[in-house]
């Protein structure tokens, strides 16, 4: 349609602003993301980076009363910003669906879990209630819950099981694109391992593309093949897993890595990033990371940053790379 059929999801110059009583909150500031079939992209960043807003915008779920969304979001070549409500409903759950962070609030407490899974199947596959329920029970088995528990209500399940139900809902109609917003953050590590394994198996089987939103670089290394690092509404580094992890370019990405306690090499002190993320209603001029950056020069505080491709696939948003031979420490020691 738009000649971009090789991408199943294309986010072009997305900007999201929230109009609040404290002023205009600039949550997402002109980001670009493309996803091919079967690809798993990790969207990494800390609280307030704009990760969840990006996810919500991809489903056109940013509350319209307060959120102003600009840019294009193409799902299978169609711009969802121009879709009717009817078209949107057909797309959500079928072409693109979402696993929410908190399974405790994502489920409806007064409906059985079977009903909640069947609902999406009924809407998209136009089957009768009974068939939909049978399919829902099949889904429960896929996520490792006994089919007899379809009659249970969410409060009867443990946290890990609730998250499996949320996953079953998202996957019920064999979606092409799965957006997972911190799917394991609310879970214990051993349960997290089970859920990640489940997502991996499912992706291998159905070739689903996935946008994995997380703050945990360990999870990214585990399940993703590409990584986008977000900071204060911008994607500051974007590349393959190997590029971002082993040939890190952006000072913020470097800071994230050195903040983590290393389980293999126990050093006495960590190297945190000084300061805190800027208030998104008062973003600094020039580079948004400059106030916390060890490499910042005078110019960084004044000039707007541009996306710069160092290789065909590896992008960095840092003007220091204008200078030939500029390198950050992580790159040097590796």
């Amino acid at each position, binding site marked *: 349609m738009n000649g971009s059929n090789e991408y199943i999801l294309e986010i072009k110059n997305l900007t999201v602003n929230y109009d609040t009583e404290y002023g205009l909150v600039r949550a997402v500031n002109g980001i670009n993301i493309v996803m091919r079939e079967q690809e798993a992209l990790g969207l990494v960043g*800390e609280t307030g980076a704009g990760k969840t807003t990006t996810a919500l915008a991809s489903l056109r779920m940013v509350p319209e009363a307060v959120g102003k969304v600009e840019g294009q979001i193409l799902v299978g070549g169609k711009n969802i910003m121009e879709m009717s409500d009817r078209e949107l409903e057909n797309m959500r759950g079928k072409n693109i669906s979402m696993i929410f962070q908190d399974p405790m609030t994502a489920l409806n407490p007064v409906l059985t879990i079977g009903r909640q899974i069947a609902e999406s199947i009924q809407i998209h596959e136009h089957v009768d209630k009974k068939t939909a329920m049978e399919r829902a029970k099949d889904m429960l088995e896929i996520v490792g819950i006994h089919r007899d528990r379809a009659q249970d209500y969410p409060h009867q399940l443990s946290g890990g099981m609730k998250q499996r139900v949320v996953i079953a809902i998202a996957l019920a109609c064999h979606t092409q694109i799965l957006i997972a917003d911190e799917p394991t953050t609310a879970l214990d590590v051993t349960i997290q*391992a089970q859920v990640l394994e489940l997502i991996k198996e499912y992706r291998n089987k159905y070739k689903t593309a996935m946008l994995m939103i997380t703050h945990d670089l360990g999870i990214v290394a585990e399940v993703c093949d590409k990584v986008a690092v977000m900071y204060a509404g911008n994607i500051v580094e974007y590349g393959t897993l190997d590029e971002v992890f082993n040939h890190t370019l952006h000072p913020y990405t470097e800071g994230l890595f050195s903040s983590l306690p290393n389980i293999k090499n126990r050093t006495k002190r*960590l190297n945190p990033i000084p300061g805190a993320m800027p208030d998104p209603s008062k973003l600094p001029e020039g580079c948004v990371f400059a106030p916390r950056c060890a490499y910042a020069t005078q110019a960084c505080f004044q000039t707007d940053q541009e996306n710069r491709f160092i290789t065909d696939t590896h992008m960095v948003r840092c003007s220091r790379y204008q200078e030939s031979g500029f390198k950050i420490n992580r790159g040097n020691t590796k």
Partner: protein
Amino acid sequence: MSTPILEVRNLRKYFYTNRGTVHAVDDVSFSVEKGHTLGIVGESGCGKSTVGRTILRLLQPTGGEVFFNGENITQLSKARLRERRKDMQMIFQDPSASLDPRMTVGQIIGEPLLINNLVRRGAEYEKAIRKLMSTVGLAQRWYNTYPHQLDGGRRQRIGIARALAVEPKLIICDEPVSALDVSIQAQILNLLMDLQEEMGLTCIFITHDLSVVHHFSDEIAVMYLGRLVEKAPSEELFENPIHPYTKALLSAIPIPETAEKNQRIILEGEVTSPIDPPAECRFKKRCYEKTDACENGEPELTEVVPGHFVACHRCQYM
């Protein structure tokens, strides 16, 4: 060997509910030497926070004894206990829930000073508070602000300053960095380690995050459903875990590296209910190494290698 500053013997805490008795902490014993850090790890509901709270008698223990500097504090009267608590402080998980929203930063940090009659209101009081603020890296301009005006990292610094106000000897940190982003988490961990070194503090560090506990602790105790299942020096536990649960837990940590991945142990089966648990190993239902012997009562914590304790039936026959 020096005498431990804290000794916990057969500590038990049960909660009585309509559905039966929850064995939140069941027969837990350990000791911590002065200046050392003990990490307690485990997943939600394993009783790690309850252990911390019961030691400070924020919860009254159902059984067992806690000795602080050789004194049994489980039976102390309220007045004596208040005096002892000067030596034992706690840093809580959620900095927004553990700070009174109607008090300013200065008032929160100063409250323990007034309660314990350490200083009187006045110039000296303010000076003491300002000194504490600079110790934990809080800018002086926050003195009159309220906690909700500050971000999570700064709020946790208030919690730390409040705990330090009475110059305690022992600090129990209950998930002090879990609510924080990684870059802020690293700042707070560094602060805690510096303070510990400067003041010679003894710490109990309660967390679910294994990489954090590994970084911070001299010794680590692993809890599962109210019981200690393994206890060893930090390096030893990570290099040579023995209990099947510890092995699964360690293998489940996602490592932020692209290099070869560890073989992951995925646990199956249901978690045993902590309500009136049967007299068998509590990990049995999820254990991938279980034998018939695992039904013969609850395994005792046994020293398998010097300094390395494990509660597993299989080890007792090793």
